[in-house]
């Protein structure tokens, strides 16, 4: 185990894979000389592999994502960056219609082994265009895979898995995680895509979360413990494919479900989980399924508003308690 920050954990995964496979390259805005807008490729990746394998691009999200589709179809393994998840619309066709569909539309004749790393989340006052959690917009398109690590170990393990996956994978990095320190297994550490992880065992309620919200859920679990409520925290890690069995197994144990996500409420991914459990786990439930989410608004700028926007441990605690 080594202690490092979240960005370094991802950089370690990138480095190991790029050493192993010369067809892997990185491209994006400021990934090279600047070391990445959040410093990820600056943790030795650009220094080690240089400008031909860590390529700075113009401000051209359409071409950044779009060229990666062609490069992947033609035999490379691109790891491209969409600097902020909020920009997904700029490369919407490239991601939703091209990357996601080429394997299916061509009857399996080619594969698109690309990774799109992108940054989500509020908390630093970046406001409406730089703070969203848009995972539902990826999850809704068949053909894409979607992962969102919460811990450093999972970040390294999932970036390696994402790169090795022959499908297009969107890898979501919450910007509030970069500065945190965490323990990372050394060497070839892989986390299988599609497998959730119980970050805390419990008996009284299941809290499903992913990405930065896992940490908030764990904080809520501590608050709940003080009230004698034993919460179980399930970190999805992958949203597509979804570890449905893990969710149902946990709810079978606790009989109560709260889903917490930073994305807005309406049509957030929590709605999908709620529908799924209401359908396939109805008899397991002793209470309605609750979602703790951001409100249906753009991300506001003012720190006072942003603090009210992002779900807190207290809000999760209150939701659990309201289940009775």
């Amino acid at each position: 185990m080594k202690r490092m920050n979240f960005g370094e954990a991802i950089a370690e995964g990138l480095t190991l894979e790029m050493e192993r496979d010369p067809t892997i390259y990185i491209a994006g805005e400021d990934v090279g000389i600047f070391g990445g807008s959040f410093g990820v490729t600056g943790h030795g990746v650009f220094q080690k592999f240089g400008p031909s394998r860590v390529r700075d691009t113009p401000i051209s999200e359409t071409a950044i994502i779009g060229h990666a589709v062609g490069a992947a179809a033609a035999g490379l393994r691109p790891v491209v960056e969409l600097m902020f998840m909020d920009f997904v619309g700029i490369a919407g066709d490239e991601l939703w219609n091209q990357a996601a569909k080429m394997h299916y539309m061509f009857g399996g004749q080619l594969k698109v082994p690309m990774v799109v790393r992108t940054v989500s989340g509020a908390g630093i006052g970046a406001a409406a265009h730089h703070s969203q959690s848009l995972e539902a917009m990826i999850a809704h398109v068949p053909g894409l895979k979607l992962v969102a690590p919460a811990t450093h170990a999972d970040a390294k393990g999932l970036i390696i898995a994402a790169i090795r996956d022959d499908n297009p994978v969107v890898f979501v990095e919450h910007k509030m995680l970069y500065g945190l320190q965490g323990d990372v297994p050394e060497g070839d550490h892989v986390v299988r895509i599609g497998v959730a992880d119980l970050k805390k065992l419990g008996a009284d309620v299941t809290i499903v979360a992913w990405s930065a919200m896992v940490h908030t859920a764990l904080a809520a679990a501590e608050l709940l413990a003080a009230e004698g409520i034993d919460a179980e925290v399930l970190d999805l890690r992958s949203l597509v494919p979804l570890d449905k069995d893990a969710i149902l197994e946990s709810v079978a144990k606790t009989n109560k479900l709260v889903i917490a996500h930073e994305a807005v409420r309406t049509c957030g991914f929590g709605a999908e989980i709620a529908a799924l459990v209401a359908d396939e786990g109805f008899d397991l439930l002793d209470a309605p399924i609750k979602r703790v989410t951001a409100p249906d608004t753009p991300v506001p700028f003012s720190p006072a508003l942003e603090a009210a926007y992002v779900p807190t441990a207290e809000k999760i605690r209150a939701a659990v308690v309201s289940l009775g």
Partner: protein
Amino acid sequence: MSQDREHLLDLYRCMVKIRAFEDAAHAQFLSGAMPGFLHLYSGEEAVAVGVMAVLRDDDFVTSTHRGHGHLIARGGDVNLMMAEIFGRATGYCKGKGGSMHVADVKLGMLGANGVVGASIPIGTGAALACQFKGEGAVSVTFFGDGATNRGTFHESLNLASVWQLPAVYICENNLYGVANCQREHMNICDIADRAKSYGMPGVIVDGNDVLAVREATAEAVARAREGGGPTLVECKTWRHHGHFVGDAATYRDPAEHQEWMEKDPIPRFGADLVSGGHVTPDDLAFIQAEIASELEAAVAFAVGSPWPTEADLLTDVYTD
């Protein structure tokens, strides 16, 4: 450039094959036997055939919604193509793609595309793969006049130029983006002029002259193979039919249409071959007849093929 008789006949044969395929598809569609949509390539054969004539097996091609010509010129199998546009399980894409998404990846043909302009970044990325491999392979990307107004064109050509990618961009300017003529959707006459903005050469070619297309492409491909970067080649041409089958194209001036029909690339090249002493009219007629039976067989193959099943619906969303 080769004036070898067999090569010239191959060019002729290929154009005839494309025309015959489109005519057969057209007839089947009008009879009600064929599902979906058809965007016929008829009239533009000299572009696809002239371009493919200079490519190697390891080069890549990306195509458009009007892509049957590109696939046939690249060596596509008309049986598998016909079955695909009939939606049968024996088609190139198991019936899952259809006319606008037909592909033969083994031929380096990375697919037709239902989104105008979407081929351009994809072809650009394939060019990067060629550059990485370092064996001199190139990526040829087709698109129409309308597509050059999309951001994909701008971003891709700029990127290809900055990275000096081995890319050749072929603009098939048939003067119409569906119903809008070129002067209605851009304020310039020559799309090749746009190349200057990206620091790459821009070339204009008579897109109805297969040998002229071949020459221009050869130069662009050589430049790309030698590490000299991308080129934009604008082929002035004309589509014989409407944008899709069912479009009567009343937005086009009948006189202009007639003028272009008289420049039909196939009889034009045939006449050149005969007057050049390479072939006789009988040789050409023989080729026409040969192709006609090939297409008859392709239709029979398609119509006689099974439909995909409901189980097939759920496969190929992801690869293992």
